[in-house]
């Protein structure tokens, strides 16, 4: 359950992240997981969406390196990650150079500064 009922689901989702917890939704009607957070289920239209904590495991589905000058922060990874619960999100894989992030790699979610990022599975931090 969301820590702070703070209005709409976007605010609830962010409030949880700000406390270090990553939440996705699950529809009680059709039993499918939902992300990004919605007020109604995009699969069946029901409003019976409840917060659940994902297991945290996922797979890199698509990958790019955004090329930036060093003074603009340098190159960064942007990936689409498929969570094991069956939802996809944009994020980044940290702890390795962007060029080492590849489609199919297993990754694990971590919340840092109110944002969901991923590490390669088995990476030591």
């Amino acid at each position: 359950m969301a820590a702070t009922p703070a209005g709409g689901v976007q605010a609830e989702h962010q409030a949880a992240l700000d406390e270090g917890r990553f939440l996705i939704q699950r529809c009680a009607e059709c039993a499918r997981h939902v992300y990004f957070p919605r007020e109604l289920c995009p699969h069946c239209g029901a409003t019976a969406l409840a917060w659940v904590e994902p297991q945290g495991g996922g797979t890199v589905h698509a990958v790019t390196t955004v090329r930036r000058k060093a003074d603009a922060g340098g190159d960064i990874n942007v990936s689409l990650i498929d969570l094991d619960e069956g939802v996809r999100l944009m994020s980044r894989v940290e702890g390795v150079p962007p060029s080492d992030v590849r489609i199919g790699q297993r990754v694990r979610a971590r919340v840092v500064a109110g944002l969901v990022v991923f590490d390669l599975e088995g990476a030591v931090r």
Partner: protein
Amino acid sequence: MTAALRGRVAIAGAATFGCGEAPGFTDIELLARAAHAAVADAGLTMRDIDGITTASASATMWPLPVIEYLGIRPTFVDGTMLGGSSFIAHLMQSMLALQAGLCNAILVCYGSAQRSASFGRREIVAARRFLDPQPYEMPYEPFLPASAYALAASRHMHEFGTTRRQLAAVAVAARAWAQHNPEAFMREPLTIDDVLASRLVSDPLTVRDCCLVTDGAGAFVLVRSERARDLPTRPVYVLGNATTVWNRQISSMPDLTITAASESGVRAFAMAGLAPKDIDVVQLYDAFTINTLLFLEDLGFCKKGEAGPFVESGAIAPGGSLPVNTNGGGLSCVHPGMYGVFALIEAVRQLRGECGERQVQGARTALAHGNGGTLASQSTAVLGTGDTL
């Protein structure tokens, strides 16, 4: 259902203005010049225009200033904004309005001084964060739109073995066509190795895999087909049109290698009673090189996953089996923020036989496909000459 609309409306006039660099012009000034030229091309005057459709990437109420500027009193107004596909998507509401008798002559128009404007990309990106937020993508700092297309390209490469050389071949073919088009902005020779050696923007896309940033305006005039036959210009008939939107964000796209063009194409072809094999010349919204591959597949010109080898064989370049983006496309001809209207105008010019040394001889049918957002909105038009009715 929509088949009843097949061929009932014609494009009676079309024009571009200020393509490339038009320093000192505003968006609406460029638009007005193209609009006037398109109306004159149709053998009409501004007083004859009683319907208008237009869209802007920055002004949310854009039909208002355009109507004011042109001094018209339209009985039909549409400002549907779906991104770059908008001006092809406007065909359907225009056809319905003309058939319902809401109006008699519709001006579809667009203009942008994106290249020369002082309010640049950086300011627009900053403003959009507030006006049109994407809170689940922007925190990760993708370089949009390029990174979204790069993500789709990574997936196409992974699933089908598509290579960077094959992506580059799209840009090389576009440039080869541009070299036959005096209006094209970039006409210097370009090789696959040139593309591969150019600066990476968002892997695997280099700056030469990305469309131009130019100025430019385009406009065309739609009338009922009976009337078009009495006007001076050879009519180009709208045989089919369909628009599909499934998502907005790349992270919400159901399958990164199958765009909504796979549905808009089927519906547009069904309305036209034609198939991909019947099309003589193809204009695809090539915001990035991966677009051309995806749309060749999704519109049925190639099987899924086979567009890379098809393009690398030279098939879409001048002299190839399927003429694609004969003006040079968004990659080498013109891309002022939104390209859809220019894809459609090039299809019209080909069917009117006005394309000089890039003319596809005997072209009777054309497909123009528009894309909007980050592979989000898709609109397909099938056009034909009088003998396709």
